[in-house]
């Protein structure tokens, strides 16, 4: 039996095995959230009345003293009874967003685009509303396991979703399924959109210069973000660094080079960390950014890739004096990205 969960003046139904966050997002109630793995703490809230089951909440993110003080992770906790919560970081900012939905899609194409890297196109039965940069969760057939993949689409491309997948040897999702049994025509269950790594709404977009650093298949959200930003302002200053291990790991180079040729403010810079090639920058993409950009004051920064790269990116942005509140990071750790190390700085 579902329980009611209340935040502010909004009340939603939440099943006993459903996360609070899931219930809120499905009802169109916005709540800060990012990794949906219990690791980032973005969705922490306070239980004012009632009781929750913390389920998979890790002790690192939600220590005992916080549990005792009534804190909970919305992406992990489920209600045990009718419950009232307050979301401190939302503080009155409960606003509409793209509602979270369960969808079924058809595999339209599976293409090898680089070493151990595939592009997956999924045709949706009905369009999905999302913001450029957000991600979806795919359900691995037969296992119930869910895996998170960023959308490479602009919000207008709402009928065919483009995902980039890197093979993780032995991985249940990538190795066994998306590099194994998957076939065109397969039906796939997915949930989305999720995450806070996305461009602001057009009305809130100040058009500031953007520094984007991608590692491996962390490139995917930038195809959505950069194209959307350039649609809004064709002259916008944007640099996109794509860090990979060697030239064999690069993909979509022509696509991005063409976009750069058509966009006076956009530069695309592939960077190879381990296996240099004559036509490419060598080293780490975060170092290339520091070499190229003397000051990033007033810029926004965007980071998606292995944790070490993201950490180095935050440091690089601050070194060039980007305001920390302007630094955006994809906080979910894709099983794929964990293994690339390609852009690990």
């Amino acid at each position, binding site marked *: 039996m579902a329980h009611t969960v209340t935040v502010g003046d909004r009340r939603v139904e939440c099943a006993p095995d459903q996360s609070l966050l899931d219930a809120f997002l499905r009802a169109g109630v916005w709540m800060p959230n990012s990794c949906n793995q219990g690791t980032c703490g973005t969705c922490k809230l306070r239980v004012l009345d009632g009781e929750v089951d913390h389920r998979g909440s890790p002790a690192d993110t939600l220590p005992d*003293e916080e549990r005792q003080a009534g804190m909970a992770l919305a992406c992990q906790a489920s209600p045990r009874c009718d419950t009232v919560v307050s979301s401190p*970081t939302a503080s009155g900012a409960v606003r509409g967003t793209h509602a979270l939905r369960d969808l079924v899609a058809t595999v339209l194409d599976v293409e090898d685009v680089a070493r151990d890297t595939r592009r997956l196109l999924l045709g949706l039965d009905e369009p999905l509303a999302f913001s450029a940069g957000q991600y979806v969760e795919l359900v691995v057939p037969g296992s119930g396991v869910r895996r998170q993949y960023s959308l490479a689409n602009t919000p207008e491309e709402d009928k065919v979703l483009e995902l980039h997948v890197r093979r993780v040897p032995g991985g249940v999702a990538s190795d066994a399924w998306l590099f194994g049994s998957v076939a065109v025509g397969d039906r796939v269950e997915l949930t989305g959109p999720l995450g806070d790594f996305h461009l602001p709404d057009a009305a809130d977009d100040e058009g500031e210069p953007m520094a984007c650093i991608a590692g491996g298949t962390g490139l995917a959200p930038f195809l959505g973000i950069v194209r959307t930003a350039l649609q809004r302002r064709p002259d916008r200053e944007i640099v996109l660094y794509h860090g990979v291990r060697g030239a064999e790991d690069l993909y979509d180079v022509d696509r991005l080079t063409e976009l750069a040729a058509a966009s006076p403010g956009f530069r695309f810079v592939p960077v190879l960390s381990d296996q240099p090639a004559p036509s490419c920058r060598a080293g780490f993409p975060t170092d290339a950014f520091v070499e190229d950009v003397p000051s990033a004051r007033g810029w926004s920064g965007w980071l998606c890739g292995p944790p070490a790269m993201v950490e180095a990116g*935050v440091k690089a*942005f*601050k*070194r*060039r*004096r980007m305001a*920390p509140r302007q630094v955006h990071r994809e906080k979910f750790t894709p099983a794929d990205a964990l293994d690339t190390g390609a852009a690990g700085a």
Partner: protein
Amino acid sequence: MTITEQPAAATEQRDLSWLDAVTMTELERDPYPVYERLRREAPLAFVPVLGSYVASTAEVCRSIATSPDFEAVITPAGGRTFGHPAIIGVNGDVHADLRSMVEPALQPVEVDRWIDDLVRPIARGFLEQFEDDGHAELVAQYCEPVSVRALGDLLGLKDVSSDQLRDWFHKLNRSFTNAAMDENGEFAHPEGFAEGDAAKAEIRSIVDPLIDRWIVEPDDSAISHWLHDGMPPGRTRDREYIYPTIYVYLLGAMQEPGHGMASTLVGLFSRPEQMEEVVDDPTLIPRAISEGMRWTSPIWSATARISTTPVTVAGVDLPAGTPVILSYGSANHDTGLYEAPTAYDLHRPPLPHLAFGAGNHACAGIYFANHVMRIGLEELFESIPNLERDTREGVEFWGWGFRGPTTLHVTWEV
């Protein structure tokens, strides 16, 4: 502990002859070793150089600050500097009237209304003067100026320069903490009050004409409200009645948010990974400040209470009329409450500290000061997220009554 051991231990605790050798200079340079020993051996002890009893542990400080057997008293050097009736040293109706005079402007709902618009442009303005230099001395160029300008504008002293306000609080500070007493209970260095007297004369020459104007033309400045609020129509509070409290503001309230910001920064520089965390996530700034205030409490040992009846505290019998100095800076290093208290640690359990005092004389400006410091650090990290301490320069703390870093040299890539 057995009963037979108790007297021996007590006798041992009472051998405090080592305190005879303690000097003001020693306390001002680094009070922690003396107070660490006091907390261990005699949490309430008579310290000859101060001519006063001193409370050094959290428990004793808190119990005296909130005890019905004590009331406020100003330290002798403080009273000599501020005169009577200063808000920090009075009781009963006068205290209630002075609190009712200062508190309306400091209520959270009131402060929330204007604090951002007041402090953020001030912080931005000072940052613009050096943010592209690649180096700065943050105490003089940022922490103190932001602190005095915010309060100066609030009080109605918009036309008094920040350097002037800084000069005043430095002089009043040295006068207020000229605490050394001789064996006859007289001030050991009476000449040390001269610069405070000169500062007060200067303050009066500037503030008197403003008061003359506010009496006939009230405005929204705090001092104008102090003159008029709660008074019958056509009457104002006497200026001699409010001047001691104006001096309290021009010293402590002007100085301490600057001290708090600077100490927090020095603490964060001692833990580079915590500095990075706070810069990356500005919502941690209030917690960083709270720990900074615990770690080096700006009002380290500047307030006192006096017993109103014979009372026994921490095993010491005090007759009625005995002053006790509350050393909150020491209480906040109490190992009974804090593990490794000398270390700055953003992540220590957030226990309440005594940096803002306790009881009915607890700081009236807690909310205001915390937000001045918060906005100051937010703007600093926003503008210079790559701040580093200039390790070619040391950081020296000074002060027994009031304490903070005297300078803080930093560098960054421009």
